[in-house]
């Protein structure tokens, strides 16, 4: 306890609620000290997974190990896990200090040692001096931080965060996000964050697992997932994509020539199982699609017309009708190279930015 950080290993976890299988055979290994995020759409089983790890729910199958110990059957209070609930779940009848000290009292930490540890935890979440307040006298962001202090003061083997930022307004969320990023470095506790927010997941995590309908679709570092999504679901969930389906031509040295109706043919790394004549899908992120004025179009460029423009402040999103497709492009909002609705443009891309995806 409280020594070297522990890892988590969940094997073939299954949890059913009547006819629905909320968690359908999850294998996740979190490394010691890692900040790991489970990312997925609403209802995919993220909270259920977290509750299985915490011991609030008993699995219908599979095992959970934290560090060297098999905790599959261990009662909640014996797991030494810090859990931050989506609604914070602070004890309304206790002061902030009493809330934070609750776990210490349960662990029979001597009274004299509790005070300094509570003070240090509150300092860590930048709430020094708030110990005497009641939760009802705090803002949402402050309550959030009390919940965090309450979870870390016990020096848990594992810190679980269930959508900790989703109840905060946009600015506060940004603040808390950078605070969490700081904490992560200072504390070094193995942490599992559950969220449906890609920015949250990517900015905080060492690795991310993308979930769909109770299953893990892919695990990897944020850039890995973004650049090489395992399938169309992961690609689409991590942001807007251009998704082109064409036909495989020649394959040589693991590189396939793929023909797309209306576009030029491209050379992409072949997926295992691709044969000549097969259907193949590749993706291209909008920010990798270059736009130039049609007059300056180079050899092999595809020319089209801009039919949608959306300014995001620092970025501009374009939709281009070209080759019978709707192509998405994103560009920095500079003074130069801006296009207007109806402009004729040439689109270009580097084949190295294309990623083949399984259906």
């Amino acid at each position, binding site marked *: 306890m409280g020594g070297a950080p522990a890892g988590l290993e969940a094997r073939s976890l299954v949890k059913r609620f009547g006819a629905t299988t909320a968690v359908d055979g999850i294998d996740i290994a979190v490394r010691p000290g890692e900040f790991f995020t489970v990312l997925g759409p609403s209802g995919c089983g993220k909270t259920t997974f977290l509750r299985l790890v915490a011991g609030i729910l008993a699995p219908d199958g599979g095992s959970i190990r934290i560090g060297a110990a098999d905790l599959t059957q261990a009662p909640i209070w014996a797991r030494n896990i810090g859990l931050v609930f989506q609604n914070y779940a*602070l004890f309304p009848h206790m002061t902030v200090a009493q809330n934070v000290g609750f776990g210490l009292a349960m662990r029979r930490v001597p009274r004299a040692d509790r005070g300094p540890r509570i003070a240090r935890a509150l300092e860590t979440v930048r709430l020094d001096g708030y110990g005497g307040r009641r939760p009802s006298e705090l803002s949402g962001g402050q309550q959030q931080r009390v919940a965090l202090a309450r979870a870390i003061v016990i020096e848990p083997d594992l810190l679980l965060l269930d959508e900790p930022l989703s109840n905060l307004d946009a600015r506060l969320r940004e603040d808390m996000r950078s605070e969490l990023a700081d904490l992560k470095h200072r504390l070094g506790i193995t942490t599992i964050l559950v969220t449906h927010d890609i920015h949250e997941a990517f900015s905080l995590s060492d690795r991310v697992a993308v979930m769909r309908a109770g299953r893990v679709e892919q695990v990897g570092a944020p850039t890995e997932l973004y650049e090489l999504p395992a399938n169309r679901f992961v690609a689409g969930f991590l942001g807007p994509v251009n998704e082109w389906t064409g036909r495989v031509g020649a394959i040589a040295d693991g590189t396939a020539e793929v023909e797309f109706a209306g576009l030029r043919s491209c050379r992409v790394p072949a997926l295992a199982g691709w044969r000549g004549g097969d259907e193949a899908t590749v993706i291209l992120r909008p920010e990798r699609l270059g736009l130039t004025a049609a007059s300056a179009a180079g050899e092999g460029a595809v020319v089209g017309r801009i039919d949608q423009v959306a300014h995001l402040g620092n970025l501009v999103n374009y939709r281009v009708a070209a080759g019978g497709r709707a192509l998405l492009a994103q560009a920095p909002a500079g003074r130069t190279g801006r296009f207007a609705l109806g402009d004729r443009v040439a689109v270009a891309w580097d084949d190295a930015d294309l990623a083949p995806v399984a259906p």
Partner: protein
Amino acid sequence: MISGAAGRSALGIRLGGSVWLFLGPALLLMLAAYLAPLFDTTIVSLHPNRPTGIDRDSWTIANYLRLLDTYYGEVLLRTLRVSLLITLFSVLLAYPVGVWLAGLGPRGQAWAILVYMSPWFVNAVVKSFGWTLILGNRGLVNRGLQSLGLIDSPLRLMLNETGIVIGLLPGHFLFVLLPLWAALKGLDGNLRWAAMTLGARPWQVFLRVTVPLTLPALLAGAIINFTMNMAAFAAPALLGGTRTRVLSFIAYQVNLEELNWPFGGALAVAMLVVTLGFVMVAQGLTRGGLGGGRR
């Protein structure tokens, strides 16, 4: 948590102006139907009773001095003892029953509440008569225990304070159970899990989270329960018998059989003062931190 202050302003009631127009009739009705008779009773209790009737021309505190007679002292003590005993039993039963109830499914809860309400479906006199069939010397309980060979002579289960407690407890328990049940159901279920992940065993969750957050509701129920016990009339009269009278029955006798309204008034005022005293002490306890000082 935050809903306290927000809730108040959300109601948006400013006392003044048209509000009195709506409150007026209700206030007048209360004044006429409740406070006026009470005031009159108090005045009457300060007049002497003569064979010719109430002597409204002279004033006296003799009626109150008569209360100091040991007989009335005993009756008052008995009334308090029985009332507090019923409240104590109700409070002791409240958490086990309430926690069990709150854990049932919706249908189970509806049926269980119906069962706990059932004492009120029967008239108090009929109900008390029913109890005599069960509690009497040749009643169900005593004959059952005798046929099992557990007792030789019948237990005295009625015509004493035991009878009053047994007769009132089932019906009056409801008033402790209902508020507590509502409070238990209103608890955020995550508080329980939060406490457990922090290392609390189930009994620690109960003592440190569940009880502090629901105690105000329990105490509110206990206060209602206590006042109902103090005021109960029919069941104590029938199950307590002639030697075990409670204050409300004495007041009935003095007022309606002896027609001694001045002394009956003094009895009523004394009962009111004692009951209110206990209620205020109990409320003081709630506010004074037993409930964890919720705001």
